[in-house]
């Protein structure tokens, strides 16, 4: 065990910190879940890409640095410490890319990954449907074979597609074998949202941003080269992605360490104002949020060390997803308590940011598999309790 960083890791951190301090936009960009904000975020992503900070863990050929998992964590710590913008390329980079690396063809990787990393092509996910939420296997959107044109015709509706109103392309599952049911007969498609037959409707989210979209597909042609993995085997292919969605790739500890630091700072300022004299318990809530962020960091280093030794993670990813999502809720709840009667204001600086963060945090226990489902997974696949 050696809990100090190597010279190489320290140097990597120093490089990242120096570049970020130099380049992080001030004042912060508007929300990337709005049309204007999204455009500005694409410019930022482009700058990250040009400096080879967009996808540090990828092969150099695709714009990465072949950084280790540990270095990726270090980059994330620095990224959030610097207060850098949310990653609007996140769903492509963290959800689709791992699947492409595992199941994609060389042609697909070369065609898709660089543009994804540079935000020239932005990706959204198309898992959920009106009747397929927690129960993803309930997918009804169809894919019909179009032999003549060497491809497929997609029809159906996808919902809760994050930033779907602004993205270029969608990845998701469609039912290619109508006779197979549940987890079978699904195929993983990469869909051009500009294609004929696609209608995208923006849906306003709790915080007022149009962060969601409904995507309607009517007989949309998708060529064979945009099938990811084996036809009818989409479920197996997709599970790799949902795994990483739950796991640390979606919410690295750096994000919560930075939030805990902001929370402690807010606490000090409110305490100096004497605003907390009447609430003796909120201080402990701040301390707990800090400790939890620290616990998440060390649990991550523990897992990542195992991975770098060639070990595996499996259903433990569900423990991680439960922990970060509920930590995020508690942390923001504590911030709102610190703000007291000003917490509801969405035009001040502090309050607005924390209230927006709170509303975002509330989605954590819901998406990527509700925490109720995750607890079932922990009980059944980590602890071995009967499925029933």
């Amino acid at each position, binding site marked *: 065990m050696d809990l100090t960083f190597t010279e190489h890791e320290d140097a990597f951190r120093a490089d990242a910190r120096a570049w970020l301090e130099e380049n992080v936009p001030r004042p912060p960009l508007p929300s990337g879940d709005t049309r204007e904000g999204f455009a500005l975020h694409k410019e930022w992503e482009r700058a990250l890409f040009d400096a080879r900070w967009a996808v540090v863990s990828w092969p150099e050929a695709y714009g990465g640095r072949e950084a280790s998992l540990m270095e990726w964590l270090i980059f994330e710590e620095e990224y959030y410490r610097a207060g850098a913008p949310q990653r609007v390329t996140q769903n492509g980079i963290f959800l689709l890319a791992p699947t492409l690396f595992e199941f994609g063809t060389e042609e697909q990787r070369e065609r898709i990954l660089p543009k994804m990393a540079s935000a020239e092509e932005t990706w959204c996910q198309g898992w959920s449907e009106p009747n397929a939420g927690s129960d993803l296997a309930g997918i009804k959107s169809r894919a019909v074979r179009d032999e003549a044109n060497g491809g497929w015709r997609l029809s159906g509706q996808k919902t809760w597609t994050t930033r779907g109103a602004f993205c270029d392309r969608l990845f998701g599952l469609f039912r290619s074998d109508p006779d197979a049911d549940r987890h079978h007969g699904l195929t993983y498609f990469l869909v051009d949202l500009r294609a004929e037959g696609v209608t995208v409707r923006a849906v*306003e989210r709790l915080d007022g941003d149009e962060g969601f979209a409904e995507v309607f597909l009517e007989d949309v042609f998708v060529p064979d080269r945009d099938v990811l993995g084996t036809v009818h085997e989409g479920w197996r292919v997709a599970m790799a992605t949902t795994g990483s969605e739950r796991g640390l790739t979606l919410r690295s500890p750096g994000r919560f360490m930075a939030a805990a630091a902001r929370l402690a700072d807010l606490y000090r300022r409110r305490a100096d104002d004497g605003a907390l004299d009447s*609430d003796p*318990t*909120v201080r402990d809530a701040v301390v707990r949020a800090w400790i939890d962020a620290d616990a998440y960091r060390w649990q991550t280093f523990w897992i990542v060390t195992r991975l770098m030794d060639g070990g595996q993670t499996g259903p433990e990813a569900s423990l991680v997803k439960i922990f970060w999502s509920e930590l995020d809720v508690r942390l923001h709840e504590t911030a709102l308590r610190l703000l007291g009667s000003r917490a509801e204001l969405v035009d001040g600086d502090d309050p607005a940011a924390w209230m927006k963060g709170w509303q975002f945090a509330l989605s954590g226990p*819901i998406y990527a598999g509700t925490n*109720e489902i995750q607890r079932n997974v922990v009980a059944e696949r980590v602890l071995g309790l009967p499925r029933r």
Partner: protein
Amino acid sequence: MRFAFTDEQLAMRDAVRAFLEKECPAKVVRDAWTNDTGRSGLWSRLGELGVLGVLAPEARGGFGGDYLDLVLLLEETGRAALPEPVVEHAAVAVPRLDDARAEAAAAGDVTITVAPPSGLVLYADTADLVLHGDRFVEPGTLQLRRHESVDGSRRLFAIAAPPTSIHLASLDRAALGVAAQLIGLADRMLTMTVEYAKERRQFGVPIGSFQAVKHHLADVALALEFSRPLVYRAAWSIARGDDDRSVHVAMAKARASEAALRAGRVALQVHGAIGYTTEYDLHLWMKRAWALAASWGDAAWHDARVGRAILDTDRLPEEQ
């Protein structure tokens, strides 16, 4: 000992509920987010109905009632998420008036709001008077600066000089009124969510048949069942001028705030993504609950009030 409302009080509650179900559906609350006033347009009809003048003297066209006559009506305004300064006006300002202004206030010809210690005044732009400390002043004299609330219907205005002190009686009446509204909000969110959980199917069954969902909702019912009586008891204590009324109000506001926040959390979690959209109505109730739970003292602030009363002295619960 008799802990129940009179048939008259229940009848008035039913009348107000029926009125609000008809006149203040979700659409009215939603429109208040974007209209000029943030309000429902029902003010004068609430006056006619007698809601605004419950605490006004009969000689001034009021009902000459007490807080027990009002508390159930405030709970209904919470259930409907009625976008009006009804607590500030009917529960706090009106009982301090006995002149012609009482008459206008009872009739709903004027709107009176209150400047809380936070200095954030609700609906100051459309109010005719603001109770500031122990004085009624014109809103124009307060140098209003508009603020946006997470609840788009709550038009808040910062004032240059917040009241340095506020009557304990006003604070208690406001905190209890908001507590009653929080109970109504929580009850409505629970109902909405139970209905959704019965309809929404996943894995081939209604999600309401999953034990985890059942237990989430049972916990909301539990919080409601044991906070509501605290609210009614505090209403009695204010109505009768009980020496411990401030402690009773604090208990009520603390637990009602938590019940409403829990109801909102569970409602959103059980609804899932649909509840996370503004197209669905839940957020209108949930955001009101967030705002009110933190208004006039949050749970921790009122717990601390209770603590000073029971721990820094020597007493037994409900010392006889």
